[in-house]
């Protein structure tokens, strides 16, 4: 799928609008788009919508042996996928440059910031630790994947609960949710990325660029920060010519945005927690915006299955009963058998014992010719080789293919060779001869 090209007039208009401090969606330069967080029924699952950009995140866990270098620490694994549904031009399984850099940035934001305590994920030092896996999927790309993914990632991590475990001696017991309440991860702080797009050689900057704005921007600056105003990651890309005070300005804006977003996240987490605790409804079904005309819901509906048994019985009764007549197998040689007659196959059919005699006889008559062929070779060595084929007899009724490697059990077929012995292969999968229907002509 090819992406639609950007026309010259769009490019010019967008840049002019930015100069006039106008944005397509009516935002101010430093405005973030609306953020919506919804949780799945599973723990550690959320969808974050940043305007029309949408990211799904899911956290999962598994008991694994720790890394040898860090025997008392859990393992963290992060992965963002750009699903081909997110935009035309994204292909499955392709590690584009964009994807690699996004993953590296998220890794730095979530792992290097040490926001998750990995020591608490150790079960048995050097033997078993929890591996926490965070999968993120971009579902719709309308710009600023970084921020959306970083929010989705941290929300999913906060929402996640791993099974409780206990260790007694060597025995590790993993409890089901019914036995013991699952435990949350211990998260020290929540780093959140805020992206700034730069235009006109760094003169203008926009927070949270949309996809179209990204297509005309010169460069991007991403700052990850937590609500304690600690910068966790800072990274620029593209052509960014920044003055020191611009970076300072950006970090101040970041602090404000991070505070807002953190509050929003916490509220969303609390609401979900409350719904779960009070036995209310939760999960994606609850977060579907009912008022929209594009959504529709149906309550649990009954399906009448009263007489399906009769209906099924009728179908079976009407069908013909299974035929009692069927072909009986013919065993050719030990280990090889066949059912069905007839159709020639180019692999040749396997031997049929009754015909062996015929083969034998013909073989005899050909023996002389065959030996001639082999004379020289047999002179030079005790050649154990046997012929692969019968020489040319084109009798139309019976033409066969013969087989050199006869099993020991059938010594009569060793024919002129005297030396065939131990190397006989034990089976005859490929000993074959062509059999024609004699009746055919």
């Amino acid at each position, binding site marked *: 799928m090819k992406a*639609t*090209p*950007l*026309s*010259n*007039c*769009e*490019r*010019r*208009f967008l840049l*002019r*609008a930015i100069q*006039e401090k*106008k944005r*397509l*969606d*009516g935002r101010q330069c430093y405005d973030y788009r609306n953020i919506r967080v919804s949780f799945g029924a599973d723990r550690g699952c959320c969808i974050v919508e940043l305007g029309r950009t949408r990211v799904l995140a899911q956290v999962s866990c598994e008991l694994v042996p720790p890394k040898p270098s860090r025997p008392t620490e859990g393992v963290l694994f992060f992965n963002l996928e750009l699903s081909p549904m997110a935009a035309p031009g994204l292909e499955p399984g392709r590690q584009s440059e964009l994807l690699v850099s996004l993953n590296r940035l998220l890794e730095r934001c979530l792992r290097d910031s040490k926001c998750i305590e990995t020591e608490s994920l150790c079960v048995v030092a050097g033997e078993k630790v929890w591996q926490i896996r965070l999968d993120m999927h971009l579902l719709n790309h309308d710009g600023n994947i970084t921020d959306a993914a970083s929010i989705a990632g941290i929300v999913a991590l906060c929402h996640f609960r791993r099974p409780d475990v206990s260790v007694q001696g060597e025995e590790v017991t993993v409890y089901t949710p019914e036995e013991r309440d699952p435990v949350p991860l211990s998260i020290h702080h929540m780093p959140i990325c805020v992206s700034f797009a730069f235009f006109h050689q760094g003169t203008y900057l926009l927070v949270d660029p949309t996809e179209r704005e990204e297509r005309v921007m010169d460069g991007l600056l991403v700052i990850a920060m937590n609500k304690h105003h600690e910068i966790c990651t800072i990274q620029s890309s593209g052509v960014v010519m920044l003055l020191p005070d611009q970076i300072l300005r950006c970090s101040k804006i970041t602090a404000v945005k991070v505070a807002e977003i953190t509050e929003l996240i916490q509220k969303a987490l609390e609401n979900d927690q409350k719904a779960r605790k009070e036995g209310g409804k939760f999960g994606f079904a609850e977060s579907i915006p009912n008022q*929209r*005309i*594009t959504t529709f819901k149906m309550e649990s509906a009954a399906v009448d299955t009263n007489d399906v048994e009769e209906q099924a019985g009728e179908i079976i009764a009407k069908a013909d009963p299974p035929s009692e007549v069927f072909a009986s197998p013919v065993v050719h040689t030990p280990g090889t058998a066949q059912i069905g007659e007839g159709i020639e196959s180019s692999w040749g059919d396997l031997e049929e014992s009754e015909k062996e005699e015929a083969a034998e006889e013909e073989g005899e008559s050909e023996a002389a010719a065959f030996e001639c062929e082999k004379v020289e070779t047999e002179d030079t060595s005790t050649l154990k080789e046997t012929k692969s084929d019968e020489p040319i007899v084109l009798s139309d009724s019976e033409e066969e293919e013969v087989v050199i490697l006869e099993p020991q059990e059938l010594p009569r077929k060793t024919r002129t060779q005297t030396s065939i012995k131990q190397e006989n292969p034990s089976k005859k999968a490929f000993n074959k001869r062509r059999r024609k229907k004699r009746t055919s002509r």
Partner: protein
Amino acid sequence: MAAMAMERGTAAEALVGQVVLPGDLLLLPAHYDEDAEGERLRLSAGTAPQGRLLCGPGLRRSGAGLLVTKCGLLRHRPGGGGAYWVDSQQKRYVPVKGDHVIGIVTAKAGDVFRLDVGGSEPASLSYLAFEGATKRNRPNVQVGDLIYGQFVVANKDMEPEMVCIDSSGKSSGMGIIGQDGFLFKVSLGLIRKLLAPKCEIIQELSQLYPFELVLGMNGRIWVKAKTVQQTLIIVNILEACEYMTAEQRKQALAKLSGN
């Protein structure tokens, strides 16, 4: 089985203006039944009696009736034998001969331009298919420019071909679209609505302030007003029309003109 299929069928007239789904069978008045087959043949042969029914987008002939192949609202135009078609809210454009569309130039290749029109393959447009163009006097077209043109060839088996002149060699409004202004995309359903004669939305908008507007059947809209701000307002209103009722739209417009 045939009986079952019949049971599903509903008289076409009864469903006009209603939502139909693929697989629905529309029954036509009985007198169409006998000669349903070979419909097209006779049409082209010109021997068909008047009152031949036209079967438009989203519908197929199926025995005596019509089979719906797209979801949307069933439309009917009386007159002659009448015409039925399905109006659907689709985003992806499929070129149709005679459609006026906005294309983006993606390449110049020999004597033709390649244009992205949002279909499954690029359309071609000859250098000479502009008003007044000759071998010497070629139009000044750059990659990335917008062109408003019309399909002269568009079918499923051939590469679509566009021109910017009508049959008399005049541009009649087609050609390169100005360098200013803004391009955006809406659903094909909305475009059809906007292009309908006496479209309320356009009429209401035109009372706000003057602006230029080009509507492509491929869902692309180019708009240019005096200022960036004014252009943006038009863009936002048109985009919002996708899901607004007339009532909501009037309220929004009133708010704007109040400002």
